[in-house]
């Protein structure tokens, strides 16, 4: 019918396929080339990134006065940095930072452990999963941070409410990721383990847990960023410690620079937490080629 065009494709294909299948040789060469071009362009990219950062800082310093924005609306860079030093000296910034960071860390760890534990439990029992999944979906959609005022009513003005909010916001993405991973595990791998007469427990530890690691790690990365949000909301709503409290306090005094600084430090905490998770992930998932640096 369409003899000529299909023939042309038919002739072309074996050649292309042969080239593709020629072991890993060409693929590796291509990868090498890719790495080389990346290395060549990397300094330029880094310079580009730095340039954007410098431009932003210059804009922050000189643009607001130029367009007539007063310091209590947008404090310029130098004022913000001066305020940061003052906060360190007079507002016990270090104590507030450590408080927020430790609650974020503890909440993140507890939320992750709980989320992973429940995820694996539901993943192992389809009965439990079917019973609980509508509620999990509902709770997942509910804005967890909105519970913060409730927790203050229940637990009082102490570290408990913000810790509970943090645990709660971290819990769900990790639960959902682990559960999803457990549901999509390669049945053939499980059958292989069964054929070797492995127990349910052995299948869990030797197949299911390692298989779910990439998803768990992705969940942890999401959780690391959410932990900072959880603790901040908890501190904004009540209490007298932490960077969230400093934001509320600064706002009350129309000290915008203080708010800016608290946000900066919060971001730094988030970045550190995220970097730690990314570091652990690179270690744990070292067997996945693209996770290699």
């Amino acid at each position, binding site marked *: 019918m369409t003899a000529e065009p299909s023939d042309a494709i038919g002739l072309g294909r074996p050649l292309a*396929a042969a080239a593709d*299948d020629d*072991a*890993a040789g060409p693929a590796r060469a291509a990868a090498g080339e890719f790495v080389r071009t990346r290395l060549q362009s990397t300094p330029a990219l880094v310079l580009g990134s730095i340039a954007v950062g410098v431009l932003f800082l210059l804009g922050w310093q000189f643009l607001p006065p130029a367009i007539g924005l007063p310091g209590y609306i947008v404090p310029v860079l130098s004022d913000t940095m001066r305020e940061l030093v003052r906060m360190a000296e007079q507002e016990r910034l270090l104590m507030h930072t450590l408080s927020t960071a430790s609650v974020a860390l503890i909440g993140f760890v507890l939320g992750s452990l709980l989320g992973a534990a429940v995820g694996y439990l539901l993943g192992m029992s389809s009965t439990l999963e079917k019973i609980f999944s509508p509620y999990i979906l509902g709770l997942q959609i509910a804005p967890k941070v909105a519970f913060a005022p409730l927790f203050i009513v229940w637990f009082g003005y102490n570290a408990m409410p913000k810790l509970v909010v943090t645990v709660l916001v971290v819990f769900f993405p990790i639960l959902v990721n682990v559960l999803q991973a457990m549901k999509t595990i*390669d049945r*053939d*791998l499980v*059958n*292989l*383990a*069964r*054929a*070797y*007469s*492995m*127990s349910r427990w*052995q299948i869990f530890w*030797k*197949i299911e847990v*390692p298989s779910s*690691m990439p998803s768990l790690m992705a969940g942890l990365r999401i959780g690391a960023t959410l932990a900072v949000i959880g603790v901040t909301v908890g501190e904004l709503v009540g209490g007298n410690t932490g960077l969230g409290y400093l934001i509320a306090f600064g706002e009350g005094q129309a000290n915008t620079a203080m708010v800016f600084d608290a946000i900066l430090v919060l971001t730094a905490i988030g970045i550190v937490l995220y970097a730690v998770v990314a570091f652990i992930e690179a270690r744990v998932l070292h*067997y*996945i*080629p693209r996770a290699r640096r």
Partner: protein
Amino acid sequence: MQSTASVLEVEAVTKRFGAAGGAGDLTAIERVSFSVGPGEFVAVVGPSGCGKSTILNLVAGLDAPSEGRVLLHRREVTGPDPSVGFMLQKDLLLPWRTIVRNVEFGLEATPMAAAERRARALRELQRCRLTDFAASYPYQLSGGMRQRAALARTLAIEPSIVLLDEPFSALDAQTKLILQESFAKTIAEAQITTVLITHDLMEAVAMSDRILVMSERPGRIVEEIAVDLPGRDDPMARITAPRARDYVDHLFASLHLQEKAA
């Protein structure tokens, strides 16, 4: 044909999926009987969807027959049996384990000292010519090497029978030939009883002592062909024998491929 010392006997086995007579009822295989003697290499060929893999799952004890019995060493199969090794088209290597740890995997269900496990795994890797890659991860190996590692894992448990389900079908043509040669040699050396499920008629002729031809679903055994050719341990040489072509032609006719293509 029925050897008294059969390693594997499949007796009038029928396997249905879904409720009998209900909606979605599907008979995968029907009254299938055959036996495999010690050291024998039997190939099962047939059209896709004829229940070849169902037979494998029944022998491996991953599934139970609806009717009939499967006997291994004259004992009925009721669940997974550690004396059965099986291998699929996918190598099923665990990506987070090194090759040697992958080979050890099957031994971890048995009470065996770690040192002995390691020694056994290294011995199998040597047999499959992968010693240099013991510490590599699966992604660092080519497809053919990964299949060889899977064979090493399968042989490490010292199975009395090995079930191969299309182990070469995901490989390119050249790797496939090389790997068939390598597998044939290893299996012949180890004198392991083997059942190979394949849709590649040439492969069946090149590698086996006996070929079982199955019909379309519901799968039944329609023909049994003894391959009377020398050199089972050297498929590449064997396939070039003039009479090999006759066997392939015969299988071709037996499966009515000509009519189907028309």
